[in-house]
């Protein structure tokens, strides 16, 4: 569906949907404590709200077992949580966050050892997109929304399909996805998300100055991005997960009909049901490597190489 054209009534109005990572496993092992990061982040939200009277911030918590809407600056329920020590909105956010964590804990179940403890990023991304769609359909005047992901958890390869679908629908609705990765390693999903949708991705070097990073880079509204320079990553990690085992792969087989990725040769594509008539031996056909760690791909049933290549395609 086409996105409704946003009727900006002022150029620099923001509607930011923030996906806040609340994966306890990550925060317990992170160098930055959760409370510290919360103070940075809450101050950042207030700063956004002061930049323009019409700005709006919506926060979605990305938990380990579930996701939920935590905070909406335009809602009237924020008045309920008075706390002398901090602004009203922050205290209401914290209250809701606590309630969310309680619920999330109740949903947790025993799991096998060795699983990557990733947060449910795909879920919160989908919820953000649903909220944005509602904003689009609200008619009248609304600022152009964007999504900001504050993630630290590693990527869960099993969420690849869902995340890519969400990224493509964000691309279609012209919603940029900014991402700030505060974890230890690199996140391929976040890089791809920002690259494809035209947002900005950054991995802060010095986590003590997280607030400064947020203000310098992620507070920029969409209109100002045409003349304010933002940091550009050197390359993008385009690694994918295979559809059969959800492993991260560099080289694989692709169905020529639906472009599903598999790690080994299949007789029949599980997504679209196409049957591959020719049997190609397992040599890799051609190779075009992306900038960093691209994906070398092979089409089963043909012998042709496609690649994700950021410069030449």
């Amino acid at each position: 569906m086409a996105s409704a054209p946003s009727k900006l009534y002022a150029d620099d109005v923001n509607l930011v949907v923030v996906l806040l990572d609340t994966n306890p496993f990550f925060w317990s092992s992170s160098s930055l404590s959760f409370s510290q990061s919360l103070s940075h982040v809450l101050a950042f939200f207030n700063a956004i709200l002061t930049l323009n009277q019409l700005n709006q911030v919506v926060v979605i918590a990305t938990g380990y077992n579930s996701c939920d809407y935590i905070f909406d600056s335009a809602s009237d329920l924020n008045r309920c949580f008075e706390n002398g020590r901090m602004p009203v909105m922050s205290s209401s956010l914290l209250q809701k966050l606590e309630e969310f964590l309680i619920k999330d804990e109740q949903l947790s179940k025993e799991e096998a050892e060795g699983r990557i403890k990733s947060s449910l990023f795909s879920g919160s991304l989908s919820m953000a997109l649903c909220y944005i769609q509602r904003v689009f359909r609200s008619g009248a005047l609304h600022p152009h929304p964007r999504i900001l992901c504050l993630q630290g958890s590693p990527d869960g390869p099993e969420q690849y399909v869902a995340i890519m679908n969400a990224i493509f629908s964000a691309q279609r609705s012209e919603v940029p996805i900014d991402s700030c990765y505060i974890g230890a390693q690199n996140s391929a999903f976040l890089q791809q998300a920002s690259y494809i949708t035209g947002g900005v991705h950054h991995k802060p070097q010095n986590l003590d100055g997280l607030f400064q990073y947020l203000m310098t880079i992620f507070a920029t509204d969409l209109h100002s991005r045409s003349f304010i320079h933002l940091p550009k990553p050197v390359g993008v990690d385009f690694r994918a997960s295979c559809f059969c085992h959800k492993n991260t792969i560099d080289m694989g087989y692709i169905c020529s009909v639906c472009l599903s990725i598999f790690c080994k040769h299949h007789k029949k594509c599980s997504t679209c049901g196409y049957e591959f008539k020719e049997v190609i031996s397992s040599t890799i056909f051609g190779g075009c490597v992306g900038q960093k760690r691209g994906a070398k791909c092979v089409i089963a049933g043909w012998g042709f190489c496609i690649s994700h290549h950021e410069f030449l395609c």
Partner: protein
Amino acid sequence: MLRLPTSTDPSCLKEMLLVCKLSRSSPNRAQIGAMDMAAKRRRLIPSSLRWLLTVPISSRDCRLFFPLRLPATLQISLLSVHYNIHQTMASARVAKIAKYKTTIKDPGTPGTLTMTLEKILFVPRNPKSAGKLDVEFRYIKGQKHTKEGSNKPPWLNLTNNQNGSFIFEFENYSDLQDCRDFVGKVLAKSGEVSEKPTAAYPDEQLNAAEMELRIKLLQDDSELQKLHKQFVLSDVLTEAEFWATRKKLLDREASKKIKQRLGFKSAMVSDIKPSTDGRTNKVTFNLTPEIILQIFAEKPAVHRAFLSYVPNKMSERNFWTKYFRAEYLHSTKNSIAAAAEAAEDEELAVFLKHDDILASEARRKIRRVDPTLDMEADEGDDYTHLPDHGIFRDGNKEMTELQNELYKRTLSQDINRHAAVVLEGRAVDAEFEDTKAVAEALAHSKRESSNKGESDGNSPERLDRLSRMTEIEDLQGSNNLPLAPLCIKDPRDYFDSQQANALRTSGDALSGTEQIKCSLSIPEVYGSLRESISSIKTMGWKEPIVKPEVAHQVFDALTNSISNTKHNIGKNPQESVLDRLPRKTKEELLHIWTSILELLKHFWASYPITTSYLYAKVNRLKDAMSNIYPQLEEIKGSVPSEFRHQVSLLVRPMHQALDAAIQHYEASMQKRSTQSGEKPNGYV
């Protein structure tokens, strides 16, 4: 130069179409070389054939060729119809009595002219005279001859390559005609053999339409043309291979050839000006199938007459003679004379009377009118055959002219009928070679349309038509584009993310360092998180949130990195390095990339090698690929130094692709050579 293959087999009765289309801006010129036997002089032939009726048709071998050079600014579709009525040319030899003249003034040596397929031989009657001539057809370039109607004697002038000419004077024009035909045939045939059509591949049956599609595609897409030139013309790839992967493009082009039909010309048929010959008092009409089609469409009575009279009662020539006589009579507006002649000749009367078919058609249309508001036809339409269109002048009709009234026809009637036919459009679409076919096709289409129209009042088609016609398009909602429905064969497998974890092994790409080392249990981690929250709630935010020096450091680092990357890479993440390179370099790089892709496509498709053809192909491709390396080096060298790094980054994947292909090639060569001793003959 484009030569399209023609077949000049004289014994075939088939019709052949050569269609040659040139686009506006094409620098190519088409020369379809041969001669126009029937045209009096060489000129651009418009989109119709010349058909002479001055000589009985049955004894002519009408073969039409055109020497023409098309200006590139014209878009012309040419039809050349190779048409044999009579198989006179089955003989391969012609001998006539003629006189040979070296120049026009020369009285000429009488003798016998013999022409075979190979050469021309002239033997003078007097063996002692010097006019013997023995010329091979290879050297004959063209021929000219004198016009039959003129008062010049029948001369045939054959020109050879060195611009000399041989002039032969015949006894009569029919001899001249025969010789002319023969020479034309031989010249056409030799003209063909000497050239090689560019598309004559042994394994390909190319017809002209296919060839034309390819040419159009090449002209429209300069990228494709460059690739084509680079590979096919340098023999790296054959035509067939090149186009084999582009079937979809060709199909799309073929379907794009619009099925829009050309309508009739607006000029009226009665405007055909015959060519008059003052001397012999003969008037010659040139009738082409196009004109005939228009006549039949406008005058159904003539059409019907043709179908019934020809060839039973009269020959076609007679038919047309009478028709034109009738036209002449009409043009003189002498209805009395018309009536008189009509009384004598009943066939002529057919042409002179009003067209009753038109009348009945109009009446039928009135009956067929929909109850929905359709003003297509009403009673007033039935006027075309009425004198004065049913309007009474002076309030009364002259009684005395009643019997001649049938023979009056006014110009406005003609014009209206013509306009109606033009607006209807063409009923038949194909090209014809003779009148009979035209008549039959038109009759066939009329029958079909009348069948459709004769259905009863409440037939489903009529009701369907009614419902369609009552639809008002403006008030309908817009049709959304049809989207293909999403079809996932096994949604659980596709969406389910949890099953993967059970299969996860410990030694995968994401090594242990990436995993969060978490020795705490679940309640503990959640508890610690909730503690942080409550601590913040009680204590409020830390003051200051961020230390000034840390903030300053961060800000500095960011600014530095932004300015550096802006200089190196570009302003926004979507901007590509390519855009910053000089344009020529960018185009060269892109072209090399597409040619590498093309080569690699064919290369990898040839494996596994099973035939010697594939083997040769792979060798050719490998040579072409090796030639690309120096080109890349050259580009890298030509770029100014600030871009060199980026260019080498861009070029690196190309190198890798080529390296992978060449490696594979060498490995397979090695394998083949080690195995060649053991393999039986089946393997090359």
